[in-house]
């Protein structure tokens, strides 16, 4: 089951050159360690290129987005594993 969240979240990420990799994020007052980034893709919001990450904590699947202009991370949706 997929639940739409669309909320700002706190994320720990590694920036290597032009590659961004989220490592953990906080949701429902819990720090979730990202076990695997399963997919990456981009979309355009006007002129802003938004990075999308499909990530798993080993149980659930999450979609995170990163806006490189506002430096804002959002949790878009959660899918129960």
């Amino acid at each position, binding site marked *: 089951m*997929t639940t739409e969240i669309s909320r700002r979240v706190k994320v720990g990420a590694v920036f290597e050159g032009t590659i961004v990799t989220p490592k953990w994020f906080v949701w429902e007052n819990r720090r979730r360690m990202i076990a695997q980034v*399963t997919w990456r893709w*981009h*979309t355009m919001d*006007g*002129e802003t*290129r938004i990075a999308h990450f*499909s990530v798993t904590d080993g149980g659930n*699947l999450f979609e995170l987005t990163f806006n490189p202009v506002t430096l804002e991370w959002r949790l878009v949706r959660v*899918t129960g594993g």
Partner: protein
Amino acid sequence: MNTVGGEAERQPQTCRPGTVLHLDMDAYFASIEQACNPSLRGKPVVVCGETSAEQGWGRTIVTTASYEARRFGIKTGCTVPEARRRCPDVAIVCGDPEKYLDTSRRLHRILLRYTDRVEVYSIDECFMDLAGTRRDPVTAAAEIKKAVRTELGLTCSIGVGPNKLIAKLAGDLQKPDGLVTMSRAEALVLFEDLPVQEVWGVGERTAERLARVGIFTAAELGRAPLSMLTTMFGVWGYRLQAMGCGHCDDPVARHDEKRVVKSVGHSHTLPKDTANVTIIQAYLRLLAERVGERLRRYGKAGSTVSLYVRYADFTGAGRQHRVGEPMTSGLHIYRSAMCLLRQYMPLRKKVRSLGISISALTPASGGQGFLLERCGREERLMDVVDRINRRYGASTLKPGSVLTAERFGVKERCGLIGTYLLDPKG
């Protein structure tokens, strides 16, 4: 004919059938969703276009089924309830077109390492021509399969042939994860038993007409008298006969070659069927705005408006009319579409989906707004609105009446391929 199924690393065959490759991603949308979600891997999965679980999925059509789902007889185009009847445990995923488009762009970047002759045929299919690249086509095909697997985590099937027709036929022979090479001589042997509708470019209606004169296989098409084919199909008859002989002189287009835009259209399936005219009008306005924005982006104006209405019982009707002055404005398109909608009134059935298309395109003249001050103001307004929406995202500025449609429910799905081909990003 050589097949190298499932083992891209195997040594390619020595046969050199041609330089044209046809690449088709295997169960593309479903494979991406399985790659995204580890819990779906190895399981029957269908990707559909809309979320309507609360309505029992009755309206929802399967756009792609994973190979695991296909084993239950689930195919593209069947409804989700039908898929569930065939396989109660099938996982249903609502598709994400932007994710698939972005992945296609990554695929194209892999293919462009080999040649700039990469023609995007659809979101998950490409033709390539390696002529003049000094690369062995079969070796290159094996390398491409390996790169797609390692860089994207997906599999594809590739056909290699002397032209697009035979390359596509070869690629369709072995799926998933196939690599098939085919020469024209080998294709002609296959043509003896190949149903004519399986020849690339022969549609269902053409096949029906050919069947009426006793042509059922590709080989029979190739042997058919040219005079008969040209009498039946006009100039198209020459091409049909050539196809039946395994010939196809369509060049593979360059990746940066822009396709000629012949029409611009948008359609939308409503979240639920309705006969409420206010809501239908709001969707028409929304569609008209989208069509107008794209026309202006392509520098085109159109003078033929087509409206298609599909009813809840899946019947539908289309109407079109020609206007005097080519249009680019959403408001003008909407007014023309409304003229057509009035011909459907009173609505006897609920409406399921709507589509607007503009054809008879001509280059936008920059308008004749200089003749009329009011037209000039309208064009300046459209230009400002377009610039704001391009900068801050589609529908940042929109007519108030569109809000009615948005409240009813709008899911972005339309115009995928055309948008990508004409406006590649990233």
